[in-house]
């Protein structure tokens, strides 16, 4: 189930909120677990068993880690079990066919056939969450959870189940037992949800149609300007799609008392690639820093080792985004950029005029999206080469048509990629703000509903991950 659907907004959510707030405090964790499973099982009921499996396994392993805390060797084995089981699940469901099809190129394995396993939604997110639990318990960063239902709530929590943010166990450990519910918190959740809804339904889906046009355009019609227009459209689409989804998750979390960490912080205003990755998909970056980069030694073991660690972490980060070579390439692209920045460029950028740093960053990020957006390596390279003059000329009338058609949308999105809107809002006198907010909420709800009812077009990009 996705948030931006009639089903979620007008059936699931009202029913869940009613059940949640009408049931006594004690029972809320049970209600939550049941509705989480319904949310998850809606598309693929079979995979509910996977969710329950993950819950039970990591619950037991967490208890064992805690029990054998005194015996570090044993405790480590249980942590390792958790990591291996989670990664195996992820490997089997997400990557097995990728490896099979690639192995099949080798004569000895040419008889291998892809298994055609369908990807359980959100598996990339929740396996990372459950791993963080056993590791956090082992590191004494958080207490063990003795109530399996409450642990199940953590694993399957519907707001962030399928597209993050990736919530580390230690960040919500206390909230699982006790949360604050208040009108103010609920209202801020509503605001956040509505912001996310607008980003997803009104901005991302809209500009996504422009990207669809260019993604499908045959090479002989793809001009330089057209290729840039297309990939800029994708850059906006993926940002508003994903950050909109995170906003909705955070908003929904607040409606049921949870407080999640932020996942995006206006990434497109960054002045370096290093800064971009501190502002983009923050929860993933944090996860990799905490559970991979630092355990590898981080930057404490000399320059060479630091660079190697960066390379490893970013190759995996890329691969995490999808079982295809282009994601790996995209990760390595960033590894190289980050190394260059670490070596010298970051210092230069600090001294350079701000607009140069902005252009530098946006240029590289947008080129990066071209590597990300097209899975087939051949088509991907054709597209990138068109961006740099290797296409069918500089421009054509079709580009003018689409540019003019989407110009107002592009301007709105450029504005919405910056904090200016929030700043303006905060400048308003309190009284006007108290009028403006409900008006905006009503406006977004009504227009979004119109788009959802006309839902011939509502794909959701982050299902693959």
């Amino acid at each position: 189930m996705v948030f931006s659907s009639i089903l979620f907004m007008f059936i699931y959510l009202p029913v869940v909120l009613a059940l949640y707030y009408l049931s006594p405090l004690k029972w809320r964790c049970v209600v939550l677990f049941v509705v989480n499973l319904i949310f998850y099982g809606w598309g693929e009921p079979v995979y509910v068993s996977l969710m329950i499996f993950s819950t039970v396994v990591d619950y037991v392993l967490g208890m064992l880690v805690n029990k054998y805390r005194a015996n570090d060797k044993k405790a480590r084995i249980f942590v390792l079990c958790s990591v291996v089981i989670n990664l195996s699940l992820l490997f089997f469901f997400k990557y097995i066919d990728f490896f099979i099809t690639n192995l099949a190129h080798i004569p000895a394995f040419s008889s291998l056939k892809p298994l055609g396993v369908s990807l359980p939604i959100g598996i990339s997110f929740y396996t990372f969450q459950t791993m963080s639990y056993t590791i956090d318990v082992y590191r004494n960063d958080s207490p063990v959870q003795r109530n399996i239902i409450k642990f199940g709530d953590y694993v399957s929590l519907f707001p962030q189940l399928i597209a993050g943010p990736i919530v580390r166990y230690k960040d919500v450990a206390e909230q699982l037992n006790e949360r604050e519910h208040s009108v103010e918190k609920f209202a801020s959740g509503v605001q956040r949800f509505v912001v996310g809804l607008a980003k997803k339904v009104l901005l991302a889906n809209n500009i996504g149609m422009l990207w669809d046009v260019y993604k499908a355009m045959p090479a002989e019609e793809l001009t330089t300007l057209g290729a840039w227009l297309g990939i800029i459209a994708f850059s906006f689409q993926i940002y508003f799609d994903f950050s909109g989804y995170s906003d909705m998750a955070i908003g929904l979390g607040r409606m049921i008392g949870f407080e999640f960490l932020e996942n995006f912080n206006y990434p497109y205003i960054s002045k370096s690639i290093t800064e971009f990755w501190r502002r983009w998909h923050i929860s993933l970056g944090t996860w990799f820093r905490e559970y991979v980069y630092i355990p590898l030694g981080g930057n404490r073991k000399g320059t060479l080792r630091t660079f190697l660690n960066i390379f490893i972490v970013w190759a995996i980060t890329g691969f995490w985004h999808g079982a295809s070579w282009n994601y790996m390439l995209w990760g390595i692209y960033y590894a190289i950029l980050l190394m260059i920045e670490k070596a010298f460029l970051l210092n230069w950028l600090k001294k350079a005029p701000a607009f140069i740093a902005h252009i530098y960053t946006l240029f590289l990020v947008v080129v990066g999206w071209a590597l990300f957006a097209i899975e087939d390596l051949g088509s991907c390279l054709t597209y990138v080469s068109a961006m740099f003059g290797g296409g069918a000329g500089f421009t054509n009338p079709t580009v003018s048509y689409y540019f003019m058609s989407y110009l107002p949308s592009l301007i709105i999105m450029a504005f919405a990629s910056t904090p200016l809107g929030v700043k303006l809002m905060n400048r308003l006198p309190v009284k006007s703000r108290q009028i403006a907010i409900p008006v905006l909420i009503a406006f977004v709800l009504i227009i979004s509903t119109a788009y959802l009812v006309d839902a011939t077009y509502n794909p959701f990009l982050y299902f693959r991950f």
Partner: protein
Amino acid sequence: MKRQKISSLIQVILFLAFIGGFFIINLLTPDRTFSEAENRMLEQAPKFSLDSLFSGKFTTSFETYITDQFAGRDGWIGLKSFVELALQKKENNGVYLGENGTLLTRFEKPDQKRLETNIGAVSKFAGGIGVPVYFSLIPSSTEIWADKLPKNAPSVDQHELIKDLYLRSGANNVDTYSALYEHRDEYIYFRTDHHWTPLGAYYGYRAFAEAMGFKPSSLDSFTPNTVSENFYGTTYSSSGIRSVEPDKIVIFVEDYEGLSITNYTTGSAEEGVLYDYSRLETKDKYSMFFGGNTPLLQIKTGHEGPKLLIIRDSYADAFIPFLFEHFSEIHAIDLRYNKSSVRDYIAEHGIDEVLISYGLSNFVSDANVFLLGRQ
């Protein structure tokens, strides 16, 4: 502080009233079976079974169901297209909003494989059937009225496509394109429907007369008769754009004593009509011609002349009436609903001439034209 709390409360109530309100309204409003505005059957409540749940069928059709049955659906769709146009978009759901409220469906690049199959079937048919075969492809309004399109709007060049297909048809090609293009300033297509108007069909008839070598009746010899001024057609439905004026339907050929029509709409022979006026009360007003889509029409005109078979789509409905005075019998087969052998039919009914007549977009996408190529 208190003020802040009231303000928060207002937001919460607003949100809950919206989602909860529509939840309840949707429960209370009865389901509709058909959408007039969209001209299609709406999804109905799916039956629950464990099988359909685990195959994913249940959940998918449930989501379509609640979206189709959402209270005030038509209004929401109109609102969406209004917002799109306000954002300076020139199109919605693949339909351009052209000058004078003209809705023009974007002509997408045809599927090359399908196109090869279809034109191959025509050429095979024309080469081996033993009677003269005429071939007419009717461009869509998007091509003939290209000057009404939004500036630079992309659409495939249908003239090139027709020229290419004509080179390979192996039949006597009818220059319908030029006939329509010459009269592009007239009301030859509906503004809200993908068909040509009877006036457009009249120019198509002139092109066909020229190809076959008979003398067409002049336009003056007909008395135009406006039968509807309130026609919203298929492009109106698919575009979702609601801010356009309806079309008029003006017919030219009058019904007459001695015209005998047999229609096989239901699969067996029934007495048919030239104009089914009851259709003017429905959404699909274009189906007034012969009562709409049918597998087979057999018309005895009462006039002298050869027997004509038309292999056709719905464009022919507005076109056939003009042919009455030139043929003794007219037979019309729609391959979408009639899979029987055309070859046998020709032999059985002593057909003298064949016309293959399609709207271009139907011809390049239809999955049944290959039937012509069968031995």
